């Protein structure tokens, strides 16, 4: 019988792995809603995808991000400029970084791109690039402010 293994990251950032026998999208969503233990509206995404989860056809393994926001407005500061773009909460830090250093962001040159990282203002370590940006949203308005930095994070 076909089986789906799903890693589900819930709104409280807990990660749980579940297995579904004879899986369907409806079964998976029902399980996620049950585990989320909230009456509030939630949105379900595959990791690093912009659209809400609409199909699990042909899938045997999937990483899921559950979030109260459908979209996150990401504001990135760099030097004296600010650029803004919306992403899904499941977008990875790397996807945001790629936008920020690219032509539609701050259009950095090759050398600067190689050094670039995103950081939460006031923090001392760059964000892990494979993390979902929804993890860092703390305000009620589905907004996130980050800094683009070329800092060398050498420890010592």
């Amino acid at each position, binding site marked *: 019988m076909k089986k789906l*293994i*799903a*890693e589900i990251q819930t709104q409280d950032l807990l990660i749980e*792995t579940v297995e579904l026998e004879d899986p369907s999208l409806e079964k998976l969503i029902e399980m996620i809603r049950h585990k989320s233990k909230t009456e509030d509206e939630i949105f379900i995404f595959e*990791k690093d995808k912009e659209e809400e989860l609409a199909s699990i056809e*042909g*899938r*045997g*393994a*999937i*990483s899921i991000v559950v979030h109260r926001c459908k979209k996150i407005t990401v504001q990135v500061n760099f030097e004296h400029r600010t650029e803004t773009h919306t992403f899904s909460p499941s977008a990875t830090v*790397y996807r945001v970084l*790629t936008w920020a250093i*690219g*032509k539609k962001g701050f259009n950095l040159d*090759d*050398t600067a*791109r*190689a050094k670039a990282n995103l950081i939460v203002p006031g923090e001392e*370590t*760059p964000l*892990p*690039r*494979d993390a979902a940006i929804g993890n860092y949203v703390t305000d009620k308005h589905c907004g996130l402010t980050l800094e683009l930095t070329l800092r060398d*994070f*050498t*420890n*010592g």
Partner: protein
Amino acid sequence: MDNTNWGPDRKTYESHIQTVRFLAGVEEGRWSILKSEFPDLYVRVAGRDEEAEVLVTQDFHLVCDGYPLPGPFVERWDFKSECRPPAPDANNGSPGFVDALKEWSEGSGIHGGIYRAWQRHASVHNAWAQKYPDQAWHQGRDLTFVMEKLYELVVEQAIWLGYRRQPA
């Protein structure tokens, strides 16, 4: 598969290539296993510049003896030719991709592998792992961590190529 004679390194390795995140990366087409014959793992990583529609693939060879400590040795590879290909030319690659895949040695004359803090030999080169703890391998990591880092490198190269194909 008879796993009664597997050592702890192989048991850990086999469990790590069955995690949801590793398998999801395979299903998403971000990487594929070309051959898994412990301690050797051969993978192909595919990175895209979605805007410029550029696809780059790069093979890598991982050696996971003693896994998870030390972390995997990783080198650029050509699976079809069964050898390590020449290092990328600085004129034909992004600075990060070229630097990571360059030819270097830790001093013994043997190829040092991917030049990044998470790679077995590079991690101890100039105490790189201590200097970059956020990028360093440790026992709490799993193989998907390495695959994500390799994926970033290949996407970076795809975007670099995509830039040069797009009008300014």
